[in-house]
């Protein structure tokens, strides 16, 4: 009995030491080092307008809709999102709907019709990432195909030549990391910022 109590006391001491060293000490050390060496990344890879105003994080996707949730034609649109009411950075989430889920099946059909109508394209041309919610609900990227699909509509809404917007999209396509990791992608916030600059001339 006495040894058993002794063992538990040793365990308690061990855990207190671990909490101080591995919990507080380690976390503070990494925080200090990260803030000193890599402050931009450590604080959320924030993106600024040319005037210096912070307009979000390059890594956190945003909604480009009005208050009623209708997509705004002058911006490139992100993917559908299951985070809160859509792109709520406080509650990351996927839809977690299974492959035979009827709600998901209905959503995909609705989205295909809605995107095709919004972009004025054939429904069969809408790529998969425009019809599905991402894992985080905060995917900052869209596929190059979805970006290219939106060029004509954005150009019209902005009164810009379509060729210029298309060239902008081409420049903004990021290839695979190191040439072979992941899929090619377009960062929507950075694309829209560049679009704003283009519009301003």
């Amino acid at each position, binding site marked *: 009995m006495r040894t058993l109590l002794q063992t538990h006391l040793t365990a308690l001491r061990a855990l207190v030491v671990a*909490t101080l060293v591995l919990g507080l000490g380690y976390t503070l050390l*990494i925080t200090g080092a990260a803030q000193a060496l890599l402050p931009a990344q450590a604080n959320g890879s924030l993106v600024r307008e040319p005037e210096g105003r912070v307009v979000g994080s390059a890594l956190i996707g*945003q909604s480009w809709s009005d208050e009623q949730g209708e997509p705004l034609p002058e911006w490139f649109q992100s993917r559908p999102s299951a985070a809160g009411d859509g792109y709520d950075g406080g509650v990351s989430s996927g839809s*977690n709907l299974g*492959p*035979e889920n009827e709600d998901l099946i209905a959503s995909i059909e609705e989205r295909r019709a809605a995107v095709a109508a919004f972009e004025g394209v054939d429904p069969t041309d809408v790529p998969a990432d425009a019809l599905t919610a*991402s894992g*985080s609900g905060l995917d900052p990227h869209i596929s190059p195909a979805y970006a290219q699909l939106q060029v004509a509509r954005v150009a019209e809404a902005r009164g810009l030549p379509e060729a210029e917007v298309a060239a902008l999209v081409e420049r903004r396509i990021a290839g695979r*990391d190191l040439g072979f990791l*992941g899929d090619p992608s377009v960062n929507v916030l950075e694309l829209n910022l560049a679009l704003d600059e283009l519009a301003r001339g």
Partner: protein
Amino acid sequence: MDTTTILAGLGQIAALLLLLALAWRPVGDAMARALSSERHLAVERGAYRLLGVDPAREQSWQAYARALLAFSLISVLLVYLLQRTQALLPLSNGLPAVPEPLAFNTAASFTTNTNWQSYSPELTMGHLVQLGGLTVQNFVSAAVGIVVAVALMRGIARERTGTIGSFWVDLTRACVRILLPISALMALLLVLGGVVQTLSPFGTTESLTGGQATVPLGPVASQEAIKLLGTNGGGFFNANSAHPFENPTAWTSLLQVFLLMLIPVALTRTFGTMIGDRRQGLAILGTMGVLFAVSLAAASVAESIGAGTAPELAGGAMEGKEVRFGILGSALYGTASTLTSTGAVNSMHDSWTAFGGMMPMLNMMLGEVAPGGVGAGLYGMLVLAVIAVFVAGLLVGRTPEYLGKQIGPREMKLAALYILVGPALVLVGTALSFAIPGVRESVVGTSIWNPGLHGLSEVLYAFTSAANNNGSAFAGLTASTDWLAPALGVTMLLGRYVPIVLVLALAGTLAAQGRRPVTVGTLPTHRPLFVGLLVGVTLVVTALTYFPILTLGPIAEGLL
């Protein structure tokens, strides 16, 4: 899927193999040195003084197990207490105390290296609980897995002795010499890729459209590194490694896969080194490699084909997947995470295709031995090796032995009990969820998100994940209910500590034995023939147990 995408997918696998091959020897040997060295570092001597233990004093398997269980019990209590008093603690983002069933579930979850999360971290856990409770358990629960594997290695390596090492020394060294330095380095590498690391609370910015955008900040990178290195898997955010602040780019995703496989893979080298026969470690590694390759191929093909109504309608299985990782990057992550005991996800497994989503489940049902959790994978595979030599012994009519140790009735009983724990917990837990009146209504009415066959898969996945201490989920399932939260908590505790005690008992028994000389009649356990036998035994004793219930869930869903 076009050729470039397939080639890129093969490229990421080649890169992963290259990284692991380069790290295998130095990391494996460094772990062997760290855990068998006679010298104590100054910080370690300080720790032993604070703990009041004599580092020179070794323990019997019983004393070793008592110390391990005491440490784990105190861990559960402390993590529980931190969550219950969260409202009074600093750095808590103004969050209230965590409710009792959920606090118990989370305490059990992080202590057992499961890191199942029945909650949305953004809305539930403040920074202090995350770093003071959860990050600490990420370290020590991983260390517990390593020390059990090392105790078993010593049991095999030693002869006619009553001791298998000191739990306190092993625990301290696993943290100080292995987990802490690698984590610190990798945390900074993750920050370089864009993972956030600050003590600030969530921020808001005004977006270009004039709306508000939340920027969810926190000390993420430090927790992320040990989450993967220790095959823990509990995310700082709800979306886990699908979240851009946990896993910002395709290269950080590959780094995370490398990190979660590093220690389980390198421990095969440690094993070979510690028992003085490196070929034996290679044979274990080969077995793990075969199982990994088959599983990865199956998941990649299933997700690439994208069968099923919703994926076919969308033109690809992109629901729950991030553009920057793509389908193959998601399949690799999901496979590695469930074949180790990590349970981190960079895509939502619940939305995978029926057969693709069955693979993570099968991976866990195999007992997570290819390569498995830190330590747990190796000792799981060694128990299977004991069963394999027993089967081989029956076939040729010789007394079975493994690495010079006789496998007698006591060893076989321990190994057989070990094998039975997982299936018993999974099948009984799943069955009870649908059989008990009242509970059934809660599970079907509240917990299950996708009705029908997929709902059964969600519950089966949950118990499989809990019993095998994985922690990944078909996350549609609402597990914070009065039935599932405690039931899964108990499943995690039994699924962790019953096998650990059995393995320590096996280590004690083997250490007490002498060594039998190698003769012409000895079954060589380092040859491809034995690797094949071990693969077969793993598949037969574990996967077949689950075949009937899999036909009711994912197989039926995929075929109907």
